C-alpha cells in the first residue's frame, strides 16, 4: 500500500512552482482548518451538555477530520506517488461521509422537533399565565432565601412591597420562629417536600403551604384556607357542644339514679310496710296509713321535680331561634336542676334576681346551659375546697354600664379561687382544673362561645377575693344580616376569591 505507483502528482503540474505551491498551501490550510473544527465542536458539546444529538456532532467531527487527512495526503502525493494509500484514505472518508449522511437523515425529524426559541418563549408565556391565573400563591426561593419568583397572588400577600430579590424573612418577619420556618428549613436543607397549615397573625388568616425542593432552592404553593378553618371550627364547636351535652347527661345520670332511687326506696318501703301489716290480717291503724301516704306523696313530688328540671336540658337549643324569655324563669328552671345537690352537700345556694327585669332576647336553653355550667363549676370549687365557708351566689341584675342596657349574671363561690396559671387557660377548650374524668373541660370555652353568639361576654373576675364568673348579655340582639355576620373581620386582598 505504501509502494510508489507511477509518477508523483507534481508531474501533472509540470513542477511549475506557482501552481505547485498554490496546491500545497491551499490543501495544507484546508487540512489545518478541518483538524481544528472537531475541536471547536468538542468544546461546544462539553460546555452545553444539555444539547441533544451528540452522536451526529461526533460523526460530523470524524467526517471532517477524515476530509482533512485526504487533503494532507494530496500535498504528500505531489512528491511521492503513494496513490494506494491516498485512495484508501479517500475510501475511508467516503464511508464516514455516507454514514454521517444517513445519521443526519435519520435524526432530521428529531432535530426539526427541537423547539425553536420562539416556541420556548411561547411555552414560557403559557406557564407564566398558568402560574399567574391560579388562586394559589407561588413563590420560588433560592438557597439564600431570596425570592426568585412570585406570582401575582403571592405578590399580593405583601401589598406595596416588592418580594422579588428580597429575603423571605425580610418580607414576612412574623414567619421567624414559626412552624413555617421549621418546615421550610426542612424542605430547603433536607430536600423533602412538606405541607403545613399556619395562622399568620398580621392578617388573622390561615394558610396551607406545600413546599417542594426545586433546582433553585424551594418552591412554595400556598392557599388561603381561612374560610375552611372557620367552618371546621364551627363544626368542631357544634360537635363539642353535643358531646358536652351527652357527657353532662351521663354525669347527671349517676347523680339522678341516686336522686330518683332514694325516693323510690322510700315509696317502696312505705308501701311494703303497709302491705306486710295488712298481710298479717291485723287492721292497719288509720294514723299509720295517713303518715305513710303523706310520705309517699311528698316523695313522689320530689322525684317529679327532679325529672321536670331535666326536660329543658335534654334539648340542644343551638338551632333555636332567638326569642324573648323571662330571666326569672330561666333562673328558676336552672336552679331547680342543682338545688338538691347543693342541699345534700350543705352548700348554701343564694339566688338573687332583680325584680321586674325586661325580657331577654336569647336562646333560652343555651343561656340555661351556661348558668348550669357555672353553678356546677362553682359547686365543685366549693365542695373540693375543704373550707368551712360553703356558699355559691347567683346574682342577676341589670348591667350598670355600657351604651345599651344589658343583663349581668354573676356566679360567685366561696372556693379557693383560680390560680394565676390556670386563669389564662381557663377558657380554652379541654382545660379543666378538676381531676381527670370528673370534669367537663369544654364547659367554659363553649359557654364563652355561646355568650359570643349572643353578642355578650363571659369573663373571670373576683369579688372580695372570691372567684366570680360574669356573663354580660344585651337584652336585645343587634340586627345583623347573616352575610355580614359570617364575613371575616379583616378582609385579605384577593386571597380567598376567584382570580379576576
Amino acid at each position, binding site marked *: 500500500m505504501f509502494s510508489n505507483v507511477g509518477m508523483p502528482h507534481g508531474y501533472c503540474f509540470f513542477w511549475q512552482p506557482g501552481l505547485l505551491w498554490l496546491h500545497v498551501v491551499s490543501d495544507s490550510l484546508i487540512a489545518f482548518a478541518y483538524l481544528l473544527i472537531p475541536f471547536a465542536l468538542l468544546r461546544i458539546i462539553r460546555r452545553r451538555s444539555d444539547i441533544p444529538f451528540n452522536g451526529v456532532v461526533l460523526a460530523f467531527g470524524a467526517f471532517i477530520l477524515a476530509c482533512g487527512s485526504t487533503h494532507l495526503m494530496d500535498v504528500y502525493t505531489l512528491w511521492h506517488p503513494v496513490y494506494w494509500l491516498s485512495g484508501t484514505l479517500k475510501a475511508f472518508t467516503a464511508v464516514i461521509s455516507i454514514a454521517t449522511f444517513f445519521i443526519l437523515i435519520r435524526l432530521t425529524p428529531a432535530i426539526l422537533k427541537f423547539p425553536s426559541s420562539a416556541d420556548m418563549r411561547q411555552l414560557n408565556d403559557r406557564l407564566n399565565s398558568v402560574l399567574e391565573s391560579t388562586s394559589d400563591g407561588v413563590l420560588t426561593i433560592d438557597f439564600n432565601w431570596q425570592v426568585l419568583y412570585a406570582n401575582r397572588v403571592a405578590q399580593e400577600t405583601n401589598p406595596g412591597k416588592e418580594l422579588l430579590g428580597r429575603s423571605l424573612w425580610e418580607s414576612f418577619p412574623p414567619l421567624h420562629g414559626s412552624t413555617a420556618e421549621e418546615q421550610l428549613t426542612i424542605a430547603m436543607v433536607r430536600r423533602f417536600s412538606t405541607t403545613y397549615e399556619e395562622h399568620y397573625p398580621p392578617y388573622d388568616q390561615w394558610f396551607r403551604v406545600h413546599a417542594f425542593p426545586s433546582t433553585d432552592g424551594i418552591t412554595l404553593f400556598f392557599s388561603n384556607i381561612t374560610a375552611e378553618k372557620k367552618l371546621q371550627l364551627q363544626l368542631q364547636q357544634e360537635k363539642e357542644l353535643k358531646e358536652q351535652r351527652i357527657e353532662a347527661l351521663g354525669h347527671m345520670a*349517676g347523680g339522678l*339514679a341516686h336522686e330518683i*332511687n332514694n325516693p323510690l*326506696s322510700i315509696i317502696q*318501703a312505705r308501701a*311494703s310496710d303497709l302491705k306486710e301489716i295488712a298481710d298479717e290480717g291485723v287492721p292497719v291503724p288509720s294514723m299509720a296509713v295517713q303518715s305513710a301516704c303523706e310520705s309517699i306523696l311528698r316523695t313522689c313530688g320530689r322525684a317529679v321535680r327532679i325529672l321536670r328540671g331535666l326536660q329543658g336540658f335534654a334539648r340542644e337549643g343551638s338551632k333555636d331561634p332567638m326569642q324573648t324569655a323571662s330571666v326569672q324563669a330561666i333562673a328558676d328552671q336552672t336552679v331547680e336542676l342543682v338545688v338538691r345537690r347543693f342541699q*345534700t352537700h350543705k352548700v348554701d345556694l343564694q339566688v338573687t334576681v332583680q325584680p321586674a327585669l325586661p325580657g331577654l332576647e336569647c336562646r333560652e336553653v343555651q343561656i340555661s346551659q351556661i348558668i348550669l355550667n357555672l353553678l356546677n363549676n362553682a359547686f365543685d370549687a366549693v365542695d373540693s375546697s375543704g373550707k368551712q365557708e360553703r356558699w355559691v351566689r347567683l346574682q342577676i341584675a341589670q348591667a350598670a354600664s355600657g351604651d345599651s342596657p344589658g343583663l349581668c349574671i354573676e356566679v360567685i363561690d366561696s372556693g379557693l379561687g383560680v390560680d394565676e396559671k390556670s386563669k389564662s387557660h381557663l377558657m380554652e377548650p379541654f382545660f379543666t382544673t378538676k381531676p381527670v374524668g370528673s370534669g367537663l373541660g369544654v364547659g367554659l370555652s363553649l359557654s364563652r362561645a355561646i355568650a359570643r353568639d349572643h353578642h355578650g361576654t363571659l369573663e373571670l373576675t373576683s369579688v372580695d377575693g372570691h372567684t366570680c364568673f360574669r356573663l354580660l348579655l344585651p337584652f336585645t340582639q343587634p340586627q345583623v344580616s347573616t352575610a355580614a355576620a359570617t364575613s371575616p373581620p379583616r378582609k385579605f386582598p384577593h386571597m380567598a376569591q376567584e382570580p379576576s
Partner: protein
Amino acid sequence: MNVSEAIILVVDDEPELCEIFAAWLARSGCQVLTAANGAEALVTIQSTRVDAIITDIRMPIMDGVTLVRRLHELHLRIPSIIFVSGFGDIDVREMTSLGVEALLTKPVVRHQLLAALSNCLARRSDLWLTPMQNDPEDSIDMALASLADAQANSTMNLGRGGLCLACEGMLPECSVAFAIHLRKEDIVLKGQGYIRWTDPETGHIGLEFKFLDPSTRQFVVETLAEQDPYSYIPRCC
C-alpha cells in the same frame, strides 16, 4: 351471731331512708345506730361497738367507699359491711377486698336486707350448707401444690366469703362448680359459687362461696380461724 343480738350502724344521707331501715332492723330485735354520712359513721365506730354497717355509697362529706377505705387504713375491723346503692358505679374487686360482703341495689326490700345481714353475721360453720337449686353453668377443675404455696405465688388466696384464683376464660356473674386439689394437704376443695369479678389483665377471678362439701367446709372454717383474713374475697396480687 344472731341478728337480734347485733348492733347495726345504718349510714345514709336520706333521713327518711335511715329511719325506715332503722325501724325494719329494730323490728328484728337489734340495736340500731344511724349516721348521715361516712364521717359521722367513722366517729360512731371509733367510740362504740358496731357489729355490722349498712351504708349508702353516694353521700356528701364522706362517701361509702371512702368510709370503707378509711376503716381499712385505721385497722378498724367491722365484722360485716353491706353496701346499699342506687347506682352500680363501683369496683367489685376493690369492694370485696375491702371486706364488703354484699351490694344491695335500691329500692331494697326488707327481707332482702335482713337475709344479707343474717348471712353476714352468721358463724362461718353455719354457712354454705345447701347446694344451689340449679346446676352451675361452668366448672373449674385444677390441682395446686399446697395452699401456702398458692398464696405465696398468687395462684389462690382465701377470704371470709370466697377465694381468688388464677383462672382464665371465665365469665363474670356466672355460677360454677369447683374442685381444687391441694396435693400437700391431700384434700380436694369442692363446692359451688358465683364468680363476682374477673380480671383479664392478671388472669384472676373472684369467687364467692355458695355451697361447700362437708370436708371442704371444715378445712375452710379451720383455715379462716387460723388466718383471719380482712377481705371478703381477697385480691391475689
